[in-house]
């Protein structure tokens, strides 16, 4: 799989006159088999791109819901290789793009080159690394590009215009805009209009780069972002997994239903 497939996922959504829908769940939550079923169910429900968390216990960016998912996966003994195996298995039956979201220490511990090799063999399309900011990530980003994996640079409301331009200049074809200053899963504390204003600025600087919007987006607000490139819902899904486990329900079915609802709201 090469990065061109990732771009196609955005383009297909654009043809439907909507933003692409991305979901974030933690790989291996609560176990390998269920996690794979969740991915399949999400894909069957019409997601465009799956963002798979390779969770890290000492993370500095995750809110409570994602921390719970991470903790569950880690305490069930999920290892980095398990995440790759889940993705590999998923990709045998599905074309849906998968990107990995993780923290630098996970990549370091695995070894940068080995990590990339395993991304290629399991058909991962892109990597987001929360605590590996520009420009420190440029060498690794270059290695990703050489292997047709999109390294997705992060931008946020306080990234000033000079830095924004520099990051966009170095960025691959997809970037991620953190819509507000917070950890994941907090209530949206800026208006959808403000977020879109910033999104438009990014698009003005780099019209051809696809920009994913994440943080604080829920079923209530997702329709506001219909005319952007893409948006992510994560914590709400992780919470649904937690609820399903607590109530002994099927997380794959329930998360799938939620994704169908999000897709429908994004399309209406």
């Amino acid at each position, binding site marked *: 799989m090469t990065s061109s497939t990732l771009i196609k996922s955005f383009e297909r959504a654009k043809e439907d006159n909507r933003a692409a829908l991305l979901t974030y769940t933690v790989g291996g939550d609560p176990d390998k088999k269920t996690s794979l079923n969740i991915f399949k169910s999400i894909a069957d429900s019409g997601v465009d791109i799956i963002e798979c968390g390779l969770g890290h216990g*000492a993370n500095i*960016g995750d809110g409570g819901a994602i921390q719970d998912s991470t*903790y569950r996966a880690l305490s069930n003994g999920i290892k980095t290789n398990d995440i790759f195996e889940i993705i590999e298995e998923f990709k045998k039956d599905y074309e849906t793009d998968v990107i990995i979201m993780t923290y630098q220490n996970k990549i370091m*511990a695995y070894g940068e080159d080995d990590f990339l090799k395993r991304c290629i063999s399991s058909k991962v399309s892109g990597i987001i690394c929360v605590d590996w900011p520009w420009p*420190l990530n440029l060498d690794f980003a270059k290695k990703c590009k050489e292997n047709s994996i999109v390294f997705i640079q*992060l931008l946020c409301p306080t990234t000033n215009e000079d830095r924004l331009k520099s990051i966009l200049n170095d960025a691959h074809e997809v970037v991620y805009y953190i819509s507000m*200053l917070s950890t994941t899963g907090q209530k949206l504390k800026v208006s959808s209009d403000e977020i879109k204003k910033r999104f438009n600025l990014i698009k003005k600087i780099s019209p051809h780069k696809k920009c994913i919007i994440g943080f604080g987006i829920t079923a209530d607000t997702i329709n506001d972002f219909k005319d952007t490139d893409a948006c992510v819902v994560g914590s709400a899904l992780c919470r649904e997994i937690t609820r399903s486990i607590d109530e002994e329900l099927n997380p794959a079915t329930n998360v799938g239903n939620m994704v169908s609802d999000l897709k429908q709201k994004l399309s209406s």
Partner: protein
Amino acid sequence: MKLEKGIPLIDQHDENGYWGGKFGGNQIAESLNYPIEELTREFEKLRNDETFISERDYYFKNFVGAPTPFIKLENLTKHLGGAQIYCKLVSKATGGAHKAYNAVVHSLICKRLGKTYIGGDTGAGYAGKMLSMAAAKFNLKCKIFMGAKDVERQSINVFSMRSYGAEVIPVNSGSQTLVDAVSECMRWWTSENEEAHMCVGSTVGPTIFVKICAWSTAQISREMKKQVMDEFGEVPKDMKLINCVGGGSSAAGFWNEWIDYDNIELIGVEAGGPEGSSKHAAPLTNDSRIGVLHGATQYVIQDDQGEIEETESISAGLDYPGVSPLHCFLKETGRARYTSASDEEALEAFQLVSKNEGFVSPSLEPSHAFAEAIKIAPKLSKDTIIVVDSCGDSAKDSKIIAERLGYKI
């Protein structure tokens, strides 16, 4: 990797914030880039601002109580035989530990930044206690993140924090100790950085926090240098400076002025944990793998998956799986030597020092440093000067120590 002479240790990093091109850095979420740049600019300005320096010195002298005593431990020296043992009694600083220096400086910076809200992490509770103390003095709203396990075992300091009006947030994730408190504090700052300032309680975290903390604790060696000259009339030819190392803020400050003196040996003592336990908190002593923790590259106790491993120490203040990039740098350049002491050795040292010296009652953290002094002193000549930094007072540990020694209090 090379240590430069004549350049402060805190400034020996490259443009990306790495000491020796390898340790430290700013491996942070993009959302923290702006506040860290802002803080870096402000600190570089303030450290050259004479008004700010006078203000700092005023509070260090009149509120923290600088200089703290430099005393000879006559009885302990006699008891052990061998080297002459001295002590820098930093535990006499207001609040009972060196953490007051960093807390005062961060509070002053917070005000200069025009912010009225400050948050910080704490392990043993000293960093939190001192930050709460300073926040009360400087009229800052204060929030302290503390592992739930530490809230329990350091309840005396928690009581102090609450008395000073701080909100103490017990952190229930992971091992419920300092590592989780720092993670949670950084998450909080990610959300609140427009209004709030963050104080990292030790020489860990992104580069600027390492620098501010070590710049603040450097007061210890600045004043001690004068005391050493008064005592000996010159810098002793054979002197060893022993300090415990958890995050490493106290050792960084105790050694700062002495780094260019090659004849002075710097010995860092990490937490070896209970005897026979593999859950030590000694990443330098045991050559742990290099990893990224809390925004900086350092030696970290971790498994092959990059997951931080649980550590165990009788001393909450040393119970941290990573260690300051400054100490990683001092280790790699061979300037400092690192070793560890077990819980049991620290407890024995606490008893021996307290019994012999009375006026010195080290908390469990510096008891680790005393354990090393007790180990090596008898083998050394009387011309050797050992100085131990007694950086914390045992009052906060009375519950733990009494329990271990079978007393009821």
